[in-house]
């Protein structure tokens, strides 16, 4: 679909779904993500322009990825979370077939910053930075408190299944070429310590610096809910601590801005559930391993010719960052 045609269809859809709008303005593509397209635009009408975001499957065509829940379920989830007071965007409408735009949804555009290096280094966020780890703990607690009965469209991924899914990706991306002894070591270490399936909640699944909009006062909303599932809530507390998301601030484990104790204390206060640091450590090691395997998988998308670019094969080599992170985590026990 040509850009002019796309813009006209989006304007028509917005007029149809949002009463009082007459058209759209300032349409810009924000990301060319592999699994999602993100567009920014304003709805114009009688009042002030309404800042909006369109998230849709690439080209509007849904893909069949085992871990992603798809845009329609993602929109439902975000709206339910928003309605329960979670810092999630407000969904304005879900694309319908007659819109001719494929699969996706439109939500309010929240002003703020997602670029981690700015959040970690710009003066604008200096005052908020010491509070961010605690705020992230509170937000995680609010996500884990959303009633599961309203989310029966989400899959459960048990700790054991998480291990197995990542192992299967490792078999595909590494074993048929050359195994990594570091990854094999991490797989066995984790296999011997897979936590019991006990407390099961909604898990965001990609809760990290980079997927959160911050303002000078702190957390505004959490984005990227596409791999949400039911599972061990400690996954979320660990993923935000994985070194890949500290953006150089290796000694500030929570997102590059805070201490684990601040995250855990705020989470415990908000949820009333004690945090077991050993279990979080399991998930942090698992997170580094999964990210290392995922990086190599991106190179395979390139090598198998589906989507050629210079970025994907380069990301493939980032798995060695995870090898180093794993040896820091596993080497000193």
């Amino acid at each position, binding site marked *: 679909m040509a850009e002019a045609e796309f813009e006209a269809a989006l304007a028509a859809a917005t007029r149809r779904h949002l009463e009082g709008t007459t058209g759209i303005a300032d349409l810009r593509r924000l990301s060319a993500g592999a699994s999602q397209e993100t567009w920014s635009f304003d709805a114009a009408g009688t009042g002030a322009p309404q800042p909006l975001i369109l998230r849709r499957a690439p080209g509007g065509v849904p893909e069949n990825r085992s871990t992603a829940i798809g845009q329609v379920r993602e929109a439902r989830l975000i709206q339910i979370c928003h309605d329960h007071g979670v810092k999630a965007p407000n969904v304005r409408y879900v694309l319908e077939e007659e819109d001719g735009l494929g699969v996706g949804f439109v939500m309010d555009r929240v002003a703020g910053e997602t670029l981690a290096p700015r959040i970690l280094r710009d003066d604008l966020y200096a005052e908020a930075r010491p509070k961010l780890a605690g705020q992230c703990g509170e937000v995680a607690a609010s996500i884990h408190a959303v009633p599961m009965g309203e989310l029966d469209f989400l899959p459960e991924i048990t700790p054991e299944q998480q291990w197995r899914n990542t192992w299967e990706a490792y078999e595909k991306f590494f074993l048929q070429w050359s195994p990594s*002894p570091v990854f*094999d070591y991490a797989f066995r*270490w984790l296999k011997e310590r897979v936590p019991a399936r006990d407390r099961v909640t909604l898990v965001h699944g990609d809760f990290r610096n980079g997927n959160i909009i911050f303002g000078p006062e702190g957390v505004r909303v959490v984005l990227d809910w596409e791999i949400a599932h039911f599972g061990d809530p400690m996954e979320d507390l660990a993923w935000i601590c994985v070194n890949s998301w*500290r953006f150089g601030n290796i000694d500030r484990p929570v997102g590059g801005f805070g201490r684990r104790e601040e995250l855990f204390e705020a989470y415990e206060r908000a949820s009333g559930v004690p945090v077991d640091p050993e279990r979080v450590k399991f998930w942090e090691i698992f997170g580094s391993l999964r990210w290392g395997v995922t990086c190599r998988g991106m190179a395979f998308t390139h090598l198998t010719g589906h989507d050629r670019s*210079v970025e994907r094969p380069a990301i493939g*080599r980032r798995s060695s960052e995870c*090898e*180093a992170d794993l040896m820091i985590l596993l*080497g000193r026990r």
Partner: protein
Amino acid sequence: MRADRPTADELLEAVEEFLREKVMPAVSGHLNFHSRVAANVIAAVRREVARSPEIEQAQHARLAGLLGHDGDPRALNRELCEQIRNGGRDLDDAALLEHLRLVALENLGVDNPRYSAYAKLNGE
């Protein structure tokens, strides 16, 4: 590798400089980002070409030591990985852990030595 000049590394160096000094300042947005990625890829390939012989030799020697026999280095790595996987290796073995630490440093030293974990794992 050919002995005459320009050497392979000198050619790659020229491409890296071209990307960093000519292309990047002239373009913005995604093209600027991808130009930087491309320059970083060239830099990693240069490090790999320069260090591979030494790294492969060191890894080969360590693998033969850990396994107690010699062989093709790739086959030795595979054998060690299988032993780790199948429970045939003690995870607390100091020599194994040191080998893994060095493998991580060797790989990251080629791919991205500026990553924060490199200095930490290297004891710096």
